[in-house]
């Protein structure tokens, strides 16, 4: 049985090098980094080294701008609720896009529901791009935050974040970007991008699950959302997940080192997949853009007349792990909000397949997918009441 993992946007295997550096922190250097004694200080040093590595990966000037969290979701929540809480007296308006991850969208909805905020959800074009001029138009007197993702987790669209950050900056509005999918795939530099806050998550780039980070530019005001001890410069309470943080640090170091090589490799595999599917199967629609504006690891198609889960289950039987959109909404039955936002009609949006590559996928694996996928689509279409064979 094959074992081809093409769901690297959902999560990735932890790299062996990362596991190795984490191990001693479970039961050798197991101290609490807040403790005064040697075991505690050993742990504190490890946390601080990891912080430097993450800072370096994203070009932060000062490692104290990095706050460790339990993942991308917490980083998004902390960024948005944190700014909202601390600036609510200045204004209660936030601008975001309709294709953000639910960690951003539902956080915005929370602020609307519980705290009387007003949120503008900007539309996107048919490739998933946010128009910077629309961002500028949406700015109001009481806008306190703009949050636009760096790259989309479903269709791989890389947003013009630099331009949008510039607009935010000119209007003296904090700018947050969810870079969870971009990190480890494309170069990310907080200074060049000009962002004030940036979220990332370890398990999306071969680091461990349950750990992430929020970059907070020096001087940005932010209320903590986790109240308690004095950890993380009082911005995130809770005993540090030391092995996780150490693992995130190593993953960051590796990502910085391998970026270009990985990017080129995946882009080649990606384009082979895209071309192969378009050549082999009729009535398929690529979701998201082509070329440089697309994440190098992302392939996403709609297959007319059939439903996504059926494709996944069939692929799974052939040893191929794919997804039909974002993993964390797979419990939901609604078609993807991203596919609807780029204008796919309901029944076409329902027939989507996302294949996302990782650093250890091979060309042979891609060939195998291209070999079995057409048959699966054919079989499912034959079963579809919408398809006229």
């Amino acid at each position, binding site marked *: 049985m094959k074992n081809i993992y093409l769901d690297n946007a959902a999560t990735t295997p932890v790299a062996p090098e990362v596991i190795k550096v984490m191990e001693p922190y479970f039961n050798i250097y197991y101290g609490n980094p807040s403790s005064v004694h040697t075991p505690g200080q050993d742990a504190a040093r490890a946390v601080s080294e990891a912080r430097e590595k993450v800072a370096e990966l994203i070009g932060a000037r000062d490692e104290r701008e990095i706050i460790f969290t339990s993942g991308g979701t917490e980083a998004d929540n902390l960024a948005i609720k944190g700014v909202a809480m601390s600036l609510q007296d200045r204004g209660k308006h936030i601008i975001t896009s309709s294709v953000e991850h639910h960690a951003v969208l539902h956080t915005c909805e929370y602020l609307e529901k519980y705290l009387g905020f007003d949120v503008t959800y900007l539309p996107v074009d048919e490739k998933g791009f946010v128009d910077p001029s629309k961002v500028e138009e949406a700015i109001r007197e009481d806008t306190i935050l703009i949050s636009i993702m760096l790259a989309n987790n479903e269709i791989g669209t890389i947003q013009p974040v630099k331009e949008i950050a510039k607009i935010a900056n000119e209007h003296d509005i904090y700018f947050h970007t969810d870079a969870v999918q971009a990190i480890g795939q494309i170069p990310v530099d907080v200074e060049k991008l000009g962002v004030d806050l940036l979220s990332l998550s370890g398990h999306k780039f071969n680091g461990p699950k349950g750990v992430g980070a929020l970059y907070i530019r020096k001087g940005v005001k932010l209320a903590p959302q986790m109240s308690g001890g004095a950890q993380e410069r009082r911005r995130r309470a809770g005993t540090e997940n030391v092995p996780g943080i150490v693992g995130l640090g190593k993953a960051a170091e590796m990502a910085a080192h391998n970026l270009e090589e990985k990017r080129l490799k995946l882009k080649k595999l990606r384009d082979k997949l895209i071309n192969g599917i378009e050549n082999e199967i009729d009535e398929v629609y690529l979701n998201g853009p082509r070329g440089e504006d697309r994440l190098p690891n992302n392939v996403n198609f709609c297959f007319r*007349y059939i439903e996504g889960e*059926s494709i996944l289950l069939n692929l799974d*039987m052939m040893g191929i792990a794919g997804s039909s959109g974002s993993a964390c909404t797979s419990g939901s039955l609604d078609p993807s909000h991203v596919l609807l936002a780029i204008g796919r009609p309901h029944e076409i949006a329902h027939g989507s397949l996302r294949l996302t590559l990782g650093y250890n996928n091979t060309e042979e694996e891609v060939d195998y997918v291209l070999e079995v996928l057409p048959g699966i689509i054919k079989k499912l279409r034959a*079963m579809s009441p919408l398809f006229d064979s």
Partner: protein
Amino acid sequence: MYSEKVMEHFNNPRNVGEIKDADAVGEVGNPVCGDIIKLYLKIKDDTIEDIKFKTFGCGAAVATSSMVTELVKGKKIDEALKVSKETVAEALDGLPSNKMHCSNLAADALHKAIKSYNKKDNSDNSGKENDTLDKATS
């Protein structure tokens, strides 16, 4: 996620296809997810002689379609009407809670098909049993 039984039916769905000269056809759309099931029945002497389905839907939708066709093939239509979504879910060793609504699809399509057949039948023949049937399918 899915039971082995569900996966087995999903992988080898029974009675896939259309019946060109079907005596009854039932099509329902799932109000929750928008997916669609279409059932084709061949009925003779109030007995379901043949049944086929086409489904645009999730794994549960395919498996329940397949299971329904198997459960009612060869049965009298009033027996077939006793097949409810619970019957189908049970026969499949259960369904995930967020997929229970999918099992409605197949049972509803069956009931709709039989109801339309009875209507047609009634206008051709007599009206007996119509009341009970209406109740059963409501």
